[in-house]
């Protein structure tokens, strides 16, 4: 029979207590190992945001705008006018029959139909921005060609430096979005999965403290937060020459608050649910408004004024705006306190509610 050895400590502070590894760290370690052994987690945490950034970065890269397609209706001066327009880098003009011109305008293949004759007639759709632009630019070109002198000289300065491009706008938004979905899935989904497997019940049957478990769940999000934030920033820097204008520490601090906030929200959503299906639905319900309104892919300012108070109070809006302010505008800490407090508020409220109503079995 093997010797019955135990590690017990009659006095507090004796050897065994001292070498006891904190349950929190063990739980955290277990959570991270489990996550890293799920290929899906690796993809959604690390692969997906990078692919999204790459795809959108390429789609919206700053290339010279396409030439504006213009149709010149087949009349006497048509060929000469088309030649004049094509002499500019801005236009691509073709001489077309009246029927063809009308059809291509309708289909959006051309932005404008120019009808030569007594003066010029412009046919265009006033609801299409490119049509309006074409109307103004073509008129300008023709007037100058006809000898118009501008009373005031305008000078152009072109801005295409990093910081003002779509990718610069996008990367902080993707960091925010990633922290949201990572927190919700990484905590909410995993918690309900553990509950449905009776693993939560098994854990509370040990002397483990409940707070240690909840802290480890959220703690795992902090670890992932560092990876997610650093990965996207490094990607933006390496592939798109993005620069971080504000403080690195402040960026990470905001990321940390975001991770805590969405980890707690994930926990709140998972507080009672016993089935994966239930929690998935709840998470989508919580995330969808933020996905739409919180300014990840385009500015939240585009939504009507009346909606703004509601939009600004969403945690993802605060997180995205704060990240964007620090990363691309170089904002300092005091200017972001409001948003950071909002994130802390969401965190505190959701964590307190989860702790209060959490179902262990």
């Amino acid at each position, binding site marked *: 029979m093997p010797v019955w050895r135990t590690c017990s400590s009659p006095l507090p502070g004796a050897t065994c207590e001292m070498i006891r590894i904190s349950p929190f760290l063990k739980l955290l370690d277990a959570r991270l190992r489990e996550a890293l052994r799920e290929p899906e987690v690796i993809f959604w945490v690390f692969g997906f945001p990078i692919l999204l950034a790459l795809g959108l970065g390429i789609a919206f890269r700053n290339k010279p705008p396409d030439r504006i397609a213009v149709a010149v209706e087949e009349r006497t001066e048509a060929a000469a006018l088309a030649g004049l327009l094509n002499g500019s880098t801005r236009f691509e003009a073709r001489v077309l029959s009246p029927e063809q011109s009308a059809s291509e305008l309708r289909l959006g293949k051309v932005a404008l139909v120019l009808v030569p004759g007594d003066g010029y007639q412009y046919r265009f759709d006033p609801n299409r921005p490119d049509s309006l632009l074409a109307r103004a630019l073509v008129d300008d070109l023709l007037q100058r060609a006809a000898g118009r002198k501008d009373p005031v000289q305008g000078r152009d300065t072109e801005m295409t430096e990093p910081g003002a491009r779509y990718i610069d706008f996008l990367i902080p938004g993707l960091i925010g979005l990633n922290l949201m979905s990572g927190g919700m899935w990484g905590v909410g989904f995993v918690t309900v999965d553990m509950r449905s497997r009776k693993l939560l*019940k098994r854990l509370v*049957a040990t002397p483990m403290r409940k707070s240690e478990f909840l802290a480890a769940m959220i703690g795992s999000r902090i670890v992932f937060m560092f990876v997610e934030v650093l990965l996207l920033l490094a990607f933006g820097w390496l592939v798109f020459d993005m620069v971080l204008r504000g403080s690195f520490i402040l960026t990470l601090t905001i990321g940390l608050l975001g991770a805590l906030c969405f980890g707690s929200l994930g926990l709140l959503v998972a507080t009672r649910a016993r089935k994966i299906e239930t929690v998935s639905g709840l998470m989508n319900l919580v995330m969808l408004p933020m996905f739409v309104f919180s300014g990840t892919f385009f500015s939240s300012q585009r939504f009507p004024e009346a909606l703004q108070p509601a939009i600004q109070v969403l945690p993802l809006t605060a997180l995205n705006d704060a990240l964007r302010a620090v990363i691309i505008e170089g904002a300092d800490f005091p200017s972001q306190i409001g948003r950071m407090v909002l994130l802390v508020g969401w965190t505190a409220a959701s964590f307190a509610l989860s702790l209060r109503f959490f179902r262990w079995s």
Partner: protein
Amino acid sequence: MPAIRCSNLRKTYDNQVEAVRGLDLEVQQAECFGLLGPNGAGKTTTIEILEGLLPPSAGEVEVLGRRWGDHDEEIRHRLGISLQDTKLSEKLTVDETLRLFASFYRKRRETEELLDEVGLREKRASWVGKLSGGQRQRLAVACALVGDPELLFMDEPTTGLDPQSRRQLWDIVRGLKRRGRTVLLTTHYMEEAERLCDRVAIIDHGKMIALGSPGDLIARLGGEHVVEFTVDTTEGLEPEWFSSLPAVRAAHLQNGTGSLTVTEVHVALPALLESLRSRGRELARLSTRHASLEDVFVSLTGRHLRDD
């Protein structure tokens, strides 16, 4: 001080189902105690109340001399619990799982020793997801033992396991008994209860219907043998025909099978054959065996422990 004491334990669920209806139990230290009963008898509800995982609707519970509610963490350090059908994290290894559970306890068993005890040493680096059902169950038991508990709860530890895994688990429980630990287990396998338990409480419909050592309970049947027989047609067959035969203590008829509790087989058998012959019944099957807890349950309820 008994290891577990509960009195007038009741549990009524929200849906008005009365799972436990007034249960009194006392489990002594160093005893292996079994809650035996069919599915739905209230065994799991009872054990989960005793484990402090479910609040009772009424009644008193004392575990290791303490009540749930004020010294929970203290009690938990001294308990080991194996729930019915826990699915441990599939992506952790056996070793990692044990070390995680060990981190919760003040007092800890050596991982090496524990792995040997449950026979999982070769599997220590395997993911839990790759283990067989029996191996998982032994790991679940190892997790319950990792804090070197004074009192171990096991809810249906061998349900769904193959005979070999079942025997391995029995060996683990016997090892604990030798070391003077208290074990409370639930089971619906009478054979398991007979082999492992010093005492069993037979539970049915949330109530205890019998309590004692397996030997005692069987002895209370009045005979230690069971004669079972089937006849060509059961029509008009009455238990009373057989209960008055010599050496027969009790007679049951169910699904066309007669079952007699008998003190002396060599006396009862000729009388049974004669009785059937005189009534013109043809014997289709006849067997005799030692009485078991199953027979105790049948004699108390008229039903079998397992429906299958």
